[in-house]
């Protein structure tokens, strides 16, 4: 029974990492204004939203199984308050950090039209902290999985796709951004 819970937690954890990486990739593509004829902007945008919400499902299983499993002795509180567990406090704590940030990202995004754009954007920038925290949490707490080829391959896939998407985002340009950027330096302020 304990093994089943433990395997469930590991598996759903990996799925969460992949989904989160996919979400980050989709977000970067949107910010870089990526689209094709078969993948218009609103489809990629909806995909980004739905993948992010799907993470919550798997994350619930991932956290619950880890807490219920008596082997590690993790309390519910440690899932939310970082670095409070006796079991691998640093690696688990990073997972709690990622979870907290993800909650903030999801809640502010669901309430987006009712919040100020600046608040939503400020919270959304923490995605750049959420993803690395989740990644390092997974690698750090993975233990023996660190040496498994399939686990490493998934990690490489996650990191690789995010880096490629980041490169695309940084290289992308649009006349609107260029025109506004040029205007900022001029004489509108005293």
């Amino acid at each position, binding site marked *: 029974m304990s093994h089943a819970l433990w395997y469930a937690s590991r598996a759903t954890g990996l799925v969460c990492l992949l989904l989160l990486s996919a979400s980050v990739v989709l977000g970067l593509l949107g910010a870089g204004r990526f689209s094709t004829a078969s993948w218009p902007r609103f489809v990629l945008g909806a995909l980004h939203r739905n993948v992010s919400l799907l993470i919550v499902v798997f994350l619930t299983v991932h956290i619950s199984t880890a807490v219920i499993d008596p082997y590690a002795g993790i309390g519910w509180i440690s899932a939310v308050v970082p670095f409070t567990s006796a079991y691998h406090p640093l690696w688990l704590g990073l997972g709690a950090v990622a979870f907290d940030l993800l909650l903030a990202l999801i809640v502010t995004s669901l309430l987006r039209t009712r919040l100020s754009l600046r608040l939503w954007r400020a919270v959304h920038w923490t995605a750049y902290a959420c993803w690395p925290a989740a990644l390092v949490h997974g690698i750090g707490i993975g233990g023996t999985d660190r040496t498994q080829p399939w686990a490493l391959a998934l990690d490489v896939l996650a990191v690789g796709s995010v880096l490629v998407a980041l490169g695309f985002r940084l290289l992308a340009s649009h006349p609107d951004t260029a025109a506004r950027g040029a205007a900022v330096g001029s*004489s509108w302020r005293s």
Partner: protein
Amino acid sequence: MSRRTPSPVTAPAPPSGSWRLLSGWAGSGRRETYSEHLARFGALPLAAYGGAAGRQRLVETVTASGLRGRGGAGFPTGHKLAAVASSRGRAVVVGNGCEGEPSSRKDRILAEYAPHLVVEGALVAAHATGAGEVHLCMHQGAPATAVLAEAAAAHRSRVNVAVVQVPGGFVASEESALANYLTRQDSRPTSKPPRVFEAGVGGRPTLVSNFESLANLALIARFGPAWFRSAGTAESPGTALITVDGAVRHPGVVEVPYGLTLAEVMGAAGGPTEALQALLVGGYAGHWVPAGAAAAPLSHAGLAAVGAAVGVGSVIALPAAACGVVETALVLRYLAGESAKQCGPCMFGLPAIAADFAALATGAAGRDPQVSQRLRRRLGEIDGRGACAHPDGAVRLADSAMRTFEADLREHLAGRPCGYAGQLPRLPLLQPGNGVVVAR
């Protein structure tokens, strides 16, 4: 030695004839001192409008006078006062003397030669709206700023009157841009809603009124709506300060009653020096009209009937020996450069139509038959789609140019430009953003 019976104290008579705002200058040949100003016009009778009922009566007096804004839109000032007075929050009065429009000089003339009327008008507006602070705005480097500041210091009032220097720029004097600058030192227009009368400086109801409108308030408060209406027309009462420029004998600012024809207004500036082909009425964001329209009365209704508008109150005479297409192309390029670059249709659309017009002016359009059509389509696309009316002004100018210079345009399109493209332009131009260069 005879005993002199004390004569009853009488208030000075209101200005008669067409000199009203500039009657001080007309009478003394220079700017009058504060005591001369009081001797000429009498004291400002704000005490007669005390209390809430008095303030209401003041607003009604202004509405009854029919005063329309002199900043370009021609909106009834009484309605503006009422709107600000009835909005929630402590009101703010902003006097707009920036005059970013290169073709207009009337506001700086007013600040230079009748500063006390401007200050008093702002105090009247503050009283009517319950405002506690007044900001009189002029562009940085305007010479009359010191004069206005000195005049403001002479008036005793519980209202705080400050003279503010605003960064240069065509759109920096738009009402929401002024409110934005006074709130967060950013002189760019903001989106509407909210309009400034609801939420302007610091989110409070703000009255933004042109210097000339304020100066008229100072006189209406003294002499009443009936006197105000004794000059001008029924729908455009009062006098107007008009900047007359171009091919006229004595270019400058004249004060004339609304209702005089454009020809008569040019006559007040010495009349044309040569045969004219067209007039630019209402500024760079105004309308071209053919010279034949000079018989139209200068009033809101009179100009609307010939497809123009009063705008900032300037009339520029374009001689026959010039090219309206070239002049328009230069102004459009200037207007494109003055975009605040906040809204797509303006920051991309204005340079696009300026380029189209330049192609028409140089005759290069002859090789591109789509230019006219594309220009027409773009004018329709850009109009009304900015956060402020800057793109609308450029569209107005281009549209009226295409109608007024139709024959000329046909020649240009046929590859036969008139050849004036190489000469110095006849319209005064500014370098975008900074400094003044008058090209003649």
